[in-house]
């Protein structure tokens, strides 16, 4: 590794290149004891000649720390291994572990790739790594504290001004801000790789937003379940302790004391690539996941906007890049942040983790300075080396880089959107010349790093093991006693055997990481076992109004899907292809309702459709499956899944699973709609079962707090809308009194059984409308929906004004009108049904419903209205 350079590398301050001669952590040759030769599974799994083989020593034997694992795996039959790898896939699927890929037009989420075979690191080797990582995190934190404080390192020329002031990640407004305990870096992650000689190297430092710990945890939960035997026999160290440390550490940061600390996790939103992880961690750690718009600053403190008012926030675990956190003092084009946040931090009323400005030391340019800085600051040698790095801002380094351009990986030194060559691809002469010119023109912006051939570990691929290049991301959290390392990490696997670079944005996979120990691992759980008493809480009145909005629409769309599926199912069943001539009288009210609700636009104006059985059937099927058709069941299911994602951290995994399955089922038939209507009925039945499961879970598993209330309000409102539409359409139909038409209505609203148990006669308008419109005991009647909505209003925080347009008043009027309708009077219509009192009542209710919905939005989701942020400045 670049020996020629190391010789020049003295202790000269001006030449602080990466030292490579120091002792490094790695596998020695201690493990060359006699071990059983690999057979079976590993027989054909070899690393390339030049790469380090993680599993096999030079003599071909399995390394000791892998013996137990492969011993166990060899015991399984191939069939059994395949079964377990399938169950691995299923578990990932069920938990909905996902990673968003930018620029993917279809589907925001991509499923996480988990390779079932864990990556194992020997305990003594791990201990050495731990020591090195703790030293590195401590060092980086001290560098940050200096750059945002006294700046001694710059004055004494250990760091050049360009290294700090030239970086977009140095946040000038944050200079001079005091942070508790001089702790800037609460979380730190590093990417490690192992070179062919067995030594570990850091290839990147993650200090801005160290992501991945949640994925490591998710991987662990899956892998430990599919391989419980080897997991137990290896005494694999548990991860929960790391997260408990994180909780304690964050609570301790609270300016109001740890006991009442309110910690929230600030997310950029569901479009962020690691949104799954944010929701997953927020739930695991017990923090609320909030967006910038959920927070506000009052009197230099940060508050959470909830339905019942403002609640103070003490600590913000941020997943938003620091420069986006405050449009007032940082990037003023940010819509993710909270105006006034920096001043609140400056006032000491809220603490950010990581501190604002931490992105500074993430720059690869710092790597070339770390050995010198470590000796200067800590008085120790840097224990864990970085991959050899040259910052072109230094003359000698620049010269070396330009001379060895073809052997190095050139990267942008700072977080800018520089054009740099794709890693691992050889440069053409032209590209190389262009790069050379750009480095010479603005050298400060470039670093070059040595290429390292990654080590290889066995990876499961279609019934056999293949050795693939791996890298390891490790995680640290600060505690009272300094940094603590997660015993394990996120192992990432390159997509193909020759891969050298791993990025989750490409098609790479991941593994659980095991650190075996001699003694059985202690069980740690996140449950608070200390003696301190916990204040019992029965209410969760802390729903951000943005989430209330999303729950409301989740309710509306779930009921919309339900109604659409029922209407289309009845339509398909009643449609009689034999009767091509003449109208389909039974269908009239259903089709009218589907037209009004938008599933079959303009169907009444296309009488020719009803003449042509095939065309008509195709129209119905399109209303079910066509994803591009507005209002189709498929689209509604898409909306549902999108909304479910927005409230992901507030719903159970079961609810999430039910909704994803719903979508999958409808998505199966592709663009060509060659489906038999019989199959379609089957799909609709399954859809209705899925929705029933969803509603059942909502009813039985959600506490009667605000989230459930808004979900149910959405459902009730939507159901009232479609009931009224259907009843109205029925009265307008020329065959309103036809018992078969009324039977169809009863079937759609799932009230046939009730009707038959009450009336031993053919359906009549008064009897049916009494049951479906006025019966407050029937959960599918209009009045029942209105009454439920009114009950919800009672339980919610007061509406902002008691104006005549308030939701409560509107509901009271609707209820009064329905209650005054005497079912006995229904029996004798004067003239046609269309002009009857009954019809008027239904239409008035229909008119009131959108107003009620608007009142809910205006009162409880008011913040969601778009308000423009203007930046004022004087000329």
């Amino acid at each position: 590794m670049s020996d020629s350079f190391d010789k020049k590398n003295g202790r000269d301050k001006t030449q602080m290149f990466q030292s490579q001669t120091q002792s490094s952590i790695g596998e020695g040759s201690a493990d060359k004891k006699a071990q059983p030769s690999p057979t079976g599974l590993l027989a054909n799994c070899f690393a390339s000649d030049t790469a380090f083989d993680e599993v096999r020593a030079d003599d071909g034997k399995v390394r000791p720390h892998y013996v137990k694992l492969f011993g166990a795996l060899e015991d399984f039959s191939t069939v059994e291994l395949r079964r377990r790898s399938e169950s691995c896939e299923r578990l990932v699927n069920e938990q909905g572990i996902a990673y968003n890929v930018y620029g993917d037009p279809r589907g925001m989420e991509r499923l996480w790739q988990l390779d079932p075979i864990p990556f194992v690191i020997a305990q003594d080797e791990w201990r050495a790594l731990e020591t090195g990582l703790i030293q590195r995190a401590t060092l980086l934190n001290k560098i940050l504290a200096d750059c945002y404080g006294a700046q001694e390192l710059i004055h004494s020329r250990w760091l050049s001004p360009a290294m700090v002031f030239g970086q977009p990640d140095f946040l000038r407004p944050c200079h001079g801000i005091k942070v508790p305990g001089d702790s800037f870096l609460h979380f730190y992650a590093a990417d490690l790789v192992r070179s062919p000689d067995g030594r570990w190297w850091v290839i990147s430092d993650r200090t801005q937003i160290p992501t991945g710990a949640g994925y490591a945890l998710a991987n662990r939960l899956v892998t430990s379940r599919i391989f419980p035997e080897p997991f137990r026999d290896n005494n694999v160290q548990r991860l929960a302790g790391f997260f408990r440390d994180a909780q304690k550490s964050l609570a301790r940061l609270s300016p109001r004391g740890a006991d009442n600390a309110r910690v929230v996790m600030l997310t950029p939103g569901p479009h962020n690539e690691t949104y799954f992880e944010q929701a997953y961690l927020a739930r695991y750690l017990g923090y609320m996941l909030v967006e910038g718009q959920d927070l506000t600053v009052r009197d230099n403190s940060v508050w959470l906007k909830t339905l019942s008012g403002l609640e103070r926030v003490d600590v913000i675990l941020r997943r938003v890049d620091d420069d986006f956190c405050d449009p007032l003092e940082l990037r003023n084009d940010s819509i993710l942040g909270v105006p006034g946040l920096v001043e609140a931090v400056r006032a000491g009323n809220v603490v950010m983790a990581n501190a604002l400005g931490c992105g500074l030391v993430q720059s690869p340019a710092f790597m070339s300075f770390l050995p010198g800085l470590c000796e200067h600051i800590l008085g120790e040698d840097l224990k864990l080396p970085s991959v050899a790095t040259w910052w072109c801002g230094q003359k000698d380094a620049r010269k070396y880089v330009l001379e060895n351009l073809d052997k190095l990986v050139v990267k942008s030194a700072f977080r800018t959107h520089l054009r740099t060559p794709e890693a691992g691809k050889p440069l053409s002469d032209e590209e190389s010349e262009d790069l050379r010119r750009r480095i010479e023109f603005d050298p400060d912006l470039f670093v070059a790093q040595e290429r390292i051939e990654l080590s290889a570990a066995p990876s499961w691929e279609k019934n056999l093991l293949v050795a693939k290049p791996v890298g390891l991301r490790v995680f640290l959290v600060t505690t009272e006693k300094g940094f603590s390392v997660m015993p394990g990490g996120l192992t990432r696997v390159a997509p193909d055997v020759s891969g050298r670079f791993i990025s989750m944005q490409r098609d790479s996979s991941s593994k659980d990481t095991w650190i075996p120990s001699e003694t059985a691992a202690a069980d740690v759980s996140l449950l608070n076992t200390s003696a301190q008493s916990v204040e019992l809480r029965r209410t969760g009145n802390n729903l951000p109004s943005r989430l209330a909005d999303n729950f409301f629409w989740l309710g509306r769309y779930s009921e919309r899907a339900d109604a659409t599926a029922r209407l289309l199912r009845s339509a398909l069943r009643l449609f009689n292809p034999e009767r091509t001539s003449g109208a389909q009288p039974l269908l009239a009210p259903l089709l009218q309702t589907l037209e009004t609700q938008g599933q079959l636009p303009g169907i009444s104006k296309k009488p020719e459709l009803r003449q042509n059985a095939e065309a008509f059937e195709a129209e119905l099927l399109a209303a079910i499956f066509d994803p591009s058709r507005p209002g189709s069941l498929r689209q509604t299911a898409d909306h549902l899944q999108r909304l479910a994602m927005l409230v992901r951290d507030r719903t159970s995994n079961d609810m999430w699973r039910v909704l994803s399955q719903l979508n999958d089922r409808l998505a199966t038939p592709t663009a060509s709609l060659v489906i038999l209507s019989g199959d379609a009925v089957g799909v609709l039945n399954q859809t209705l079962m899925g929705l029933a499961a969803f509603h059942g879970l909502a009813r039985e598993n959600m506490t009667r707090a605000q989230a459930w209330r808004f979900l149910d309000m959405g459902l009730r409102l939507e159901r009232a809308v479609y009931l009224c539409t259907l009843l109205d359409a029925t009265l307008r139909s020329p065959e309103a009194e036809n018992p078969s038409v009324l039977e169809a209505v009863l079937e759609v609203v799932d009230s046939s059984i009730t009707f038959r148990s009450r009336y031993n006669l053919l359906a009549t308008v008064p009897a049916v409308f009494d049951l479906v419109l006025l019966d407050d005991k029937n959960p599918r009647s209009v009045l029942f929906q209105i009454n439920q909505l009114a009950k919800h209003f009672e339980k919610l925080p007061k509406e902002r004004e008691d104006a005549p347009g308030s939701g409560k008043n509107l509901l009271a009027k609707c209820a009064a009108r329905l209650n005054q309708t005497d079912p006995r009077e229904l029996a004798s219509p004067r003239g046609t049904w269309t002009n009857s009192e009954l019809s008027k009542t239904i239409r008035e209710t229909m008119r009131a419903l959108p107003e009620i919905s608007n009142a809910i939005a205006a009162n409880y989701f008011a913040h969601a209205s778009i308000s423009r942020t203007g930046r004022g400045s004087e000329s």
Partner: protein
Amino acid sequence: MKWEIIHRTSYAYASPVHNSFNEARLQPFSDEWQTVDYFLLKVLPAARLRHHHDFYSNVVHHFEIVEPHNTLMVESNLRVTTKARPLLALDATLFSLSRISEAAREPRVFDFLQESRFVDLSPEVWRFALDATDGITDTWQAALALMGFVHGTLKYEPNSTTAHTHAREVLRDKRGVCQDFAHVLIGLCRVLKIPALYVSGYLATEAASATHAWVEVLIPGVGWRPLDPTHNREADENYVKIAVGRDYSDVAPVTGTYKGTTERKMEVNVKIERLNG
């Protein structure tokens, strides 16, 4: 000299706005050449004020107005004493231009040698700077020549530019106000590696009393010297300095974000009075 200054900025919004968070850079420095004897900042609607020193040591006041409001008024009242400083001779030679890159050794000088929001260091700026300093070997002489170039090339034309006009456009259209003159001079100095910063402040002339902007350049061994390209002279005790930065974006007197309409009117009134004694 003693000065009494009232500086009022008023905003009138077309419809009520709320959640307004603001920073004001209105309190002048106290240093070797000026002392602030009295300073009071008033905000209406009334708001609690906090302050801190920013990265360039300017005093920054913070205030938030959460409740809906139709107007916002920010007014500073101050009394400042300025001292006469010895001006440098116009023909002095102080530091060789060929050694000017040594100025970059001072860590905090870094920011004043880079491009910034309103100032770029393009080849075009570099050519202008070279032409204007042809044959000059001294840093001070170069700075004076560049100031003369700006003064002679740009036409002072009120309202020809906005607060957000980039130096590039000023150089293209050859006109602007004091802020633009300062931005162009800063760019010309920086391409030649002469550290230059932006100063906001007040200047009382017979014609008017108003906010003003000028430049400070670093002459190694001598210190930062204030040059006013609008008037082609070194700033003297008639100038009151408020804040410094890389360019206008670092020293805007009032800046903030709020929620509500973008339709608004702004009015600035400055009254500068010379006190006796």
